[in-house]
């Protein structure tokens, strides 16, 4: 029997801004694309996110950040994952990310940056190709 492997994604919203519409759109979109999405809502600390990613054994973490604090928040999540031996979990960042920060995020170790308006199918394909390598 081929094991019924489903890709699991954590969609989290670190930082203090109060809008999770974008994150919800992604969460529902990925569900409809066949993913198991663990959605944890607003104002998650990097510590919570790293812990959740590990406990849920996700194939990818999607961070939605609108607050402008994407560099520090993302860096912290990546550090915590690394400290716990989970640097192999790809981290995606979405939201309002200025062009000039994209490369810097990738240098930090982010697998992909998706700004608002990216079609879900693109995100889904990206996760699929990065998962379980």
């Amino acid at each position, binding site marked *: *029997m081929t*094991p019924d492997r489903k890709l699991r994604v954590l969609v989290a919203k670190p930082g203090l801004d109060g809008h999770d519409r974008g994150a919800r759109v992604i969460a529902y979109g990925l*569900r409809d694309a066949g993913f*198991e*999405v663990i959605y*944890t809502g607003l104002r998650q600390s990097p510590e*919570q996110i790293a812990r959740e990613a590990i406990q849920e054994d996700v194939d990818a973490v999607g961070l939605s950040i609108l607050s402008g604090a994407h560099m520090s928040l993302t860096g912290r999540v990546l550090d915590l994952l690394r400290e716990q031996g989970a640097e192999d979990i790809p981290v995606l960042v979405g939201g309002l990310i200025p062009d000039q920060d994209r490369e810097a995020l990738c240098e930090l170790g982010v697998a992909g940056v998706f700004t608002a308006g990216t079609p879900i199918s693109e995100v889904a394909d990206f996760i699929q190709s990065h998962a379980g390598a």
Partner: protein
Amino acid sequence: MRGTLAREPRALARLVSGVENRTPGWEDAMKALYPHTGKARILGITGPPGGGKSSLTNRLTAGLVDRGHRVGVIAIDPSSPFSGGALLGDRLRMRDVSTAPGVFIRSMATRGSLGGLCQGARDVARALDAAGYDLVLIETVGVGQDEVEIVKAADVVAVVCVPGQGDGVQALKAGIMEIADVYVVNKADRDGADQVAADIGAMLALSGEDTTDREMVFPTNSLSGEGVEPLTEALLDRAARVEHAPERVSERAREEVLLLVEREIARRVRAGLAEDPRLESAVEGVVTRRSDPYSAAEALLGLFGRMEVVTGE
């Protein structure tokens, strides 16, 4: 396996995935794990969607951690029948404990086959048990008979009802009564909570079960935490009694073994016949009406050899 026993969260999380996905080798892992299990008590929490099960689980977990327990949580939500995906949002309500030391939360989707999930949840609970979580809470939506199956893995079952939701007491009629050890009337801050509690009390009286020695109905407010303390006491008390209920334990073991055999036979039958031309010709016979489904099934059954066990006939 070794990592799980050493209580490494990452190792445990991966083992859980392997068990959930039935990744080749999962059975060997479970076999090796089994001797390290049996210490945990499993609490099932079921009830209608939106009843506050996750919020209650959050509160219960916090209280249990304060008492020095290590708590594993399995939060089950339905998969989408359309995409096969799932939105697992229970953690949203469990933030007070999501980074607490000694707490491990795992979200699970039903993935279509509830029979499989039932065993899956049981196996995941065992993995948590082996990793030293001495209490495992399984949260599951309980609206129909199918979901009820899942909580059969539990030692103690709490059924959550809420005021103002017709299906509160309705759900009780759908066969949940046989599995409920305690009833929680959550959202007790709302109008109508007393009525729901009274309805349940009346129903219990009708059922003729002798409950004079123990409280059965617990009003709670999962937002303020009111009422959670006595509920916690009751759950721990019932969980401790299970050790002295050998019939229940052996009945569950019997069911589990039977289910494993049943599923494996079903799997072999399907796998064995999938490519077999004899299935095709049997199907054709039925379609063209040269034969009938009953004779076709009989003929195919003949292919599976003689079972050593006496069959029902």
